[in-house]
């Protein structure tokens, strides 16, 4: 059977996706446009398309591991992969959100042991410095990058990729989209600050103590209850970020002037 494949590289980690469906391969190529690569993949997934089932809105994402073998389950997809062999499979309907979900989980699992994090956050590069804006749903993550001036490069409006490099951190662009359905640019920059978002009547940055910063950040980090070791890695990675990266609370009104604080 002919397989159609593409390799998607996020944060310097190439992951190959193969499917027997040429139309779905085209859908994926479009979704991950800007992040396709010819690099040798670190992981390879065979995607098996199945008929869609009625999605269960109460069905949370479940991630579990046994040794090197991982399982990801949600009502619309199921994935299994082996970190050691670098191979896995995804059973899902022909909907890119399912592939996207598996990619997010896999990247978070790969990142945490290296001291990096995948964070529910928007991020952008201004004058060569990356800034990450994190917060719960509705706090304005997408809004923040949506009103960025033209000279600001958006890394992500939804899921930000923070990678450790020695004692420093970089933020990388991701193709993972949120309410604006806007992919980030595939670039990276030194991480200059992370900001917990709070809407207010003016624009200002307030100090955030390390304990408060860690608690706020952990609420936005992708990690999974079915993986205690991964949770310990994520905790350690978040502590490392809080130790090394300037953290603050960004109080802002929904107005582009807020970007003056990052010029």
């Amino acid at each position, binding site marked *: 059977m002919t397989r159609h494949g593409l390799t998607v590289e996020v944060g310097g980690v190439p992951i190959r996706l193969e499917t027997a469906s040429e139309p779905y391969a085209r859908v994926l190529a479009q979704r991950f446009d800007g992040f396709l690569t010819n690099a040798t993949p670190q992981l390879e997934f065979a995607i098996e398309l199945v008929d869609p089932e009625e999605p269960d809105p109460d069905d949370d994402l479940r991630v579990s591991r046994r040794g090197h073998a991982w399982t990801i389950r949600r009502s619309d997809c199921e994935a299994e992969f082996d970190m050691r062999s670098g191979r896995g499979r995804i059973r899902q309907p022909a909907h890119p959100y399912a592939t996207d979900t598996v990619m997010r989980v896999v990247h978070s699992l790969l990142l945490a042991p290296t001291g990096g994090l995948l964070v529910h956050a928007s991020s952008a590069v201004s004058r060569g410095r990356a800034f990450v804006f994190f917060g719960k749903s509705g706090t304005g993550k997408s809004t923040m990058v949506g009103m960025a001036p033209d000279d600001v490069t958006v890394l992500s409006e939804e899921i930000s990729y923070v990678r450790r490099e020695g004692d420093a951190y970089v933020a990388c662009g991701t193709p993972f989209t949120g309410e604006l359905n806007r992919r980030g640019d595939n670039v990276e920059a030194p991480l200059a600050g992370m900001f917990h978002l709070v809407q207010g009547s003016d624009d200002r940055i307030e100090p955030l*103590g*390390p*304990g408060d910063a*860690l*608690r706020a950040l*952990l609420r936005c980090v992708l*990690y999974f*209850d079915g993986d*205690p*070791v991964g*949770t*310990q890695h994520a*905790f*350690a990675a978040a*502590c490392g970020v*809080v*130790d090394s990266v300037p953290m603050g609370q960004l109080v802002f009104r929904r107005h582009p002037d807020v970007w003056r604080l990052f010029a």
Partner: protein
Amino acid sequence: MSPRYVARHPMTASRQLGGEMIVMSAGDSRLFTLNGVGAVIWTAADGVTPLSEIVAAAVCAGYDVDASVALQDAEAFVAELAEHGMMLVSDEPLASDGGPRP
């Protein structure tokens, strides 16, 4: 009364940050923030030092507190953490993985 030994549960992660000891239970991702005395006990809970010694050496030495009251409070504290699955409490010394020492 026989000595009581306490050890941090292996499925926890903790970090002292800005004067706060923040502890996470890796099993269910709950976060706890310990006060100063709690942090002292948590840090000293190596599974081989009796709780009474930890209280005498680390708590009473650093805080102006009656020894018997301090021990009583410490026992209540470790019992609460044990209830949350964060700490192991035993009448015998505990190995670093939380099990009995061979």
